[in-house]
């Protein structure tokens, strides 16, 4: 009776999308299904909480469901339009935030899975590079004008997180664990309590850095890069903006006066602090996962990533940096090379003392059934992860396993990981809080064409200009055109490589080697 009244009220509201979230629906969806079925006759779009996010904690689940409901009509109409206007668009695939591709049909029901998928695509492209170059652990560094995204790729796979904040709302669903920080080319430098601060305030694109000459007068990271000679004032940026070194010098000079430092020292300081801010983010995502970030390769892309990567690697003690081919259009590339994959998880809550392998198998089966109809592919690889905790904890350790899992093996692996993460482990009972399944269709063939089309037999710099890598003096630094560098070429620092979209800095103590596929590998020279 209550249901009929609610349905009638919703019908009269004349809305197009409704979210349904009932308490405990993650454990028992029956009532949500009944309501969903009834509602589908009066509204075009219905989101059910146990389908959007089958996990406990009503606020987060409801929030995710409401956001899903809000974008459902938008995505639905977009897909309809695609259907009408583009032949065969039913075969299109969409890049989702857990780092894989899903079918259009799947995205109609769960459009929230597209949220924050841009940064995830960058990580997916980097995953491809780690395969090309046979790297185990890598850190991605995607630096743009206002933010920098970092992500850990462990054993060739991007780390997955369970929740993020979007428009001040928590969204909880499996997503590539990209950490964003407010540090980019436009980050403002200023003095606070006698200390030099950089960001998170940003000059943005307008007025932009002082050197853009668009009205900004406050010094930014980009101004520091220009003053130190890394950026070339004689070449306009891709969008036509011309950099004015005098404006950068004036802005940084004022700041230097406040600090009692020279302008070069100040510019170097700005970069060091911007890099330190990024390092905190990197520490956060590695230490948190029990990984020593110094043993990872830094994969740098985005407009400003290749500019900063070498210095950042030096500060942190990372020995190797890769600037991949197509580094400035990397998110787009990620969409092209990502696997067809889909991730889903459900709450289990099963204690090691009352183990039921049957129940686990059944729940996993349900997850897989929900995922499979959309793909239609045959060669599907399944990856299983159990989220395990001691009874009484509320955060779980992610334990990869091979189905069907033996309780002893899971327990052993859990305790080992817990010891690594928190420096202690006990023999108490533990429980599987949830299981996660990722289904993917094995790597589709996609060959990257070599980028270079203008290899020279003898490589010559376009110019040689002074660059400051330390406060004690400028170094004559050759500038090369990136497209002219053939695979196998080796260039010792200092050097600058440029293409239309980005600049790669090779400081004095590093050397660069062009690898197959257009990737550039920077390594620290053997100790002097």
């Amino acid at each position, binding site marked *: 009776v209550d249901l009929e009244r609610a349905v009638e009220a919703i019908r009269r509201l004349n809305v197009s999308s409704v979210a349904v979230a009932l*308490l*405990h629906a*993650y454990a028992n969806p029956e009532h949500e299904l009944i309501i969903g079925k009834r509602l589908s006759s009066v509204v075009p779009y219905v989101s059910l909480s146990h389908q959007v996010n089958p996990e*406990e*904690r*009503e*606020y987060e689940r409801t929030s995710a469901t409401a956001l899903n409901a809000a974008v459902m009509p938008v995505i639905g109409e977009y897909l309809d339009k695609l259907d009408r206007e583009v032949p065969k668009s039913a075969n299109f695939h969409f890049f989702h935030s857990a780092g894989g591709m899903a079918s259009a049909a799947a995205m109609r029901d769960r459009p929230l899975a597209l949220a924050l998928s841009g940064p995830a695509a960058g990580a997916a492209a980097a995953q491809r590079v780690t395969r090309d170059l046979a790297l185990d652990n890598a850190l991605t560094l995607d630096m743009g004008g206002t933010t920098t995204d970092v992500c850990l790729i462990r054993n060739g796979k991007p780390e997955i997180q369970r929740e993020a904040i979007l428009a001040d709302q928590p969204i909880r669903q499996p997503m590539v664990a990209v950490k964003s920080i407010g540090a980019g080319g436009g980050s403002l430098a200023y*003095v*606070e*309590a*006698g*200390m*030099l*601060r950089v960001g998170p305030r940003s000059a943005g694109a307008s007025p932009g850095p002082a050197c853009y000459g668009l009205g900004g007068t406050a010094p930014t990271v980009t101004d520091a890069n220009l003053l130190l000679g890394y950026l070339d004032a004689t070449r306009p940026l891709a969008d036509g903006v011309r950099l004015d070194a005098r404006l950068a010098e004036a802005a940084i000079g004022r700041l230097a006066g406040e*600090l009692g*430092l020279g302008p070069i020292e100040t510019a*170097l*300081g700005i970069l*060091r*602090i911007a890099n*330190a*801010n990024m390092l*905190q983010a990197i*520490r*956060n995502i590695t*230490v*948190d996962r029990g990984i020593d970030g110094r043993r990872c390769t830094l994969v740098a892309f985005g407009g400003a990533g290749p500019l900063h990567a070498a210095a950042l690697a030096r500060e942190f003690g990372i020995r190797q940096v890769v600037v991949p081919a197509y580094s400035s259009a990397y998110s787009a590339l990620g969409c092209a090379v990502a696997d067809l994959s889909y991730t889903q998880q459900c709450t289990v809550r099963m204690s090691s003392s009352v183990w039921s392998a049957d129940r686990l198998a059944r729940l996993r089966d349900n997850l897989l059934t929900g995922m499979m109809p959309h793909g239609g592919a045959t060669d599907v690889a399944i990856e299983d992860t159990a989220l395990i905790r*001691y009874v*009484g*904890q*509320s*955060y779980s350790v992610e334990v990869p396993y091979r189905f069907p899992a033996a309780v002893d093996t899971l327990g052993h692996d859990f305790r080992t990981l*817990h010891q690594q*993460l*928190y*420096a*202690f482990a*006990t023999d*108490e009972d533990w429980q599987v809080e949830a299981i996660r399944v990722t289904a993917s269709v094995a790597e589709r063939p996609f060959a990257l064409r070599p980028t270079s089309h203008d290899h020279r037999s003898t490589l010559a710099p376009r110019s040689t200009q002074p660059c400051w890598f330390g406060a004690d003096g400028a170094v004559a630094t050759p500038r090369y055109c990136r497209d002219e560098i053939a695979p196998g070429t080796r260039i010792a620092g200092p050097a600058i490589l440029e293409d239309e979209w980005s600049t790669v800095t090779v400081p004095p103590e590093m050397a660069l080697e062009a690898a197959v596929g257009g990737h550039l590998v920077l390594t620290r020279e053997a100790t002097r």
Partner: protein
Amino acid sequence: MSRPFDPVTLEVIRGALTAAAEEMSLVVMRSARSPLLREAGDLSSAITDARGEMIAQGRDIPMHLGVMCFTVKEFLKRVEPRRLVPGDVWFVNLPEIGGNHLPDVKAIRPIFAGGELFAFAVSLAHWADIGGAVPGSYYTSATDIWQEGLRISPTRLFTDGGPDLEKLDLVLANLRGAPERRGDIYAQMAATRSAEHRLHDLVVEHGLATLKAAMAVLQDRSEEQMRAAIRAMPRGVFTGEDFLDDDGIHDRPIAVRVRITFSASDACFDFSTSDDAADGPVNTTPFIAAAGVFYAMKCLAGEDLQPNGGALRPLKVVTRPGSVLEPPPTRPVVGGNHETSQRVVDAIFRALEPVLADRLTAGGPTTSGLLLFGMRRSDGSWATLYETHGGGEGARADRDGLPVVRVHMSNVMNTPAEVIEAEYPIEILRQELRRGSGGAGAHRGGDGLTREYRILGDGVSLTSMFERRVVPPYGLQGGAPGAPFRVMLVRGDGQTVEVKGKVNLQLAKGDRVILESCGGGGYGRP
């Protein structure tokens, strides 16, 4: 002016120390057992220098963080530094040792480099039970502190070789829920260990001499920032007062009074004229009074103020021995921690209303709004649901108050209904906005919350510890006060009684508890 220091290195070290403190809190939340820590986050983390001066803190709970400015300093008065060795983790909860109340237990790890003690990591966690007369350790009729639970004088529970099992067992033998508490203790130990790793990394990166110098300079800089903030205050003497509803034993309000003097570059907060120490558990410590002062000044001086020991130097806090803010050490204190501390802040803000009204918020839910359910599970183990309830925020000069938030000194989250219902014999029948509870004004106070609990088992105890039931959240500049806090108990037979702000009760299966949290005060005439 402080010593010169390379501004770039200083900023790098400042960021790293703050990140290390924040990481400590993450470690506790992720590995602890009790819902109070892992769901509600009733914990805080800090790093101090070798003398115990606060250097960095996590983004945690203001009243903990204020208190932790004193914990290690007072600890070092009892434990000589030469007794400390690498690998130690000491636990302490005595209010007189830079403390607040017995449930907030501090784990202190001395950190060494090259044999030299140069820092401490402190992890404070609210234990869901510390023993004493009632489950959850909030005994509202307590007349002395021994009734409130186990008093832990500085005790080395971990050494380089691992836990000292005899001492650990002694602690666990004196409280309810030992298995859960053991996990929490390990989590606090793990947090201090992660800070030790981070600090050792910093020593390798910058050298010990530079790191120590930076820790000193960071304090000097904060002192300068605080002096600048005081200079920007209106000069003069300002007085304000606020009242506790009662002390749980006598039905009469207790005054907290402040006399603030802003001089050229320092400030004095004199609470001497506050009422005498209470018989019941609303007393608190001078450390809490200082935490309230520091919190209020940080609100007024801007968020850029780097909180550390240096920022406290220009602030003089005076309390009178024998008063509710400096009671004899025998008096009970459990509720004073989060109730009287809020009165300190309210008294300061009320004193400043005539000169700084546009920077203040009207009265809000300056109480923990605590209901504590204690019970035994079917397997005999203890379960404690420690639930704080937010209310309507006070309005400001430029906007209405927000509905259902926590304000000022506490920063604890609520427990989701699904978690409560899954883990306790309790059902949440309703949770909704308490419409119309915000005070009228040019800007309205935020609305409070209504939540209805139904008890599904027998033998459940209920403790209340909340304020603003008698003295409502005040309006500012002519705004109306918010609706007061109200909790009703509906017995299975339909009989309804009001639950006062500080009581211990026994509940029976079928009883319902209906909580209505206070609305915020309005700002300006309606």
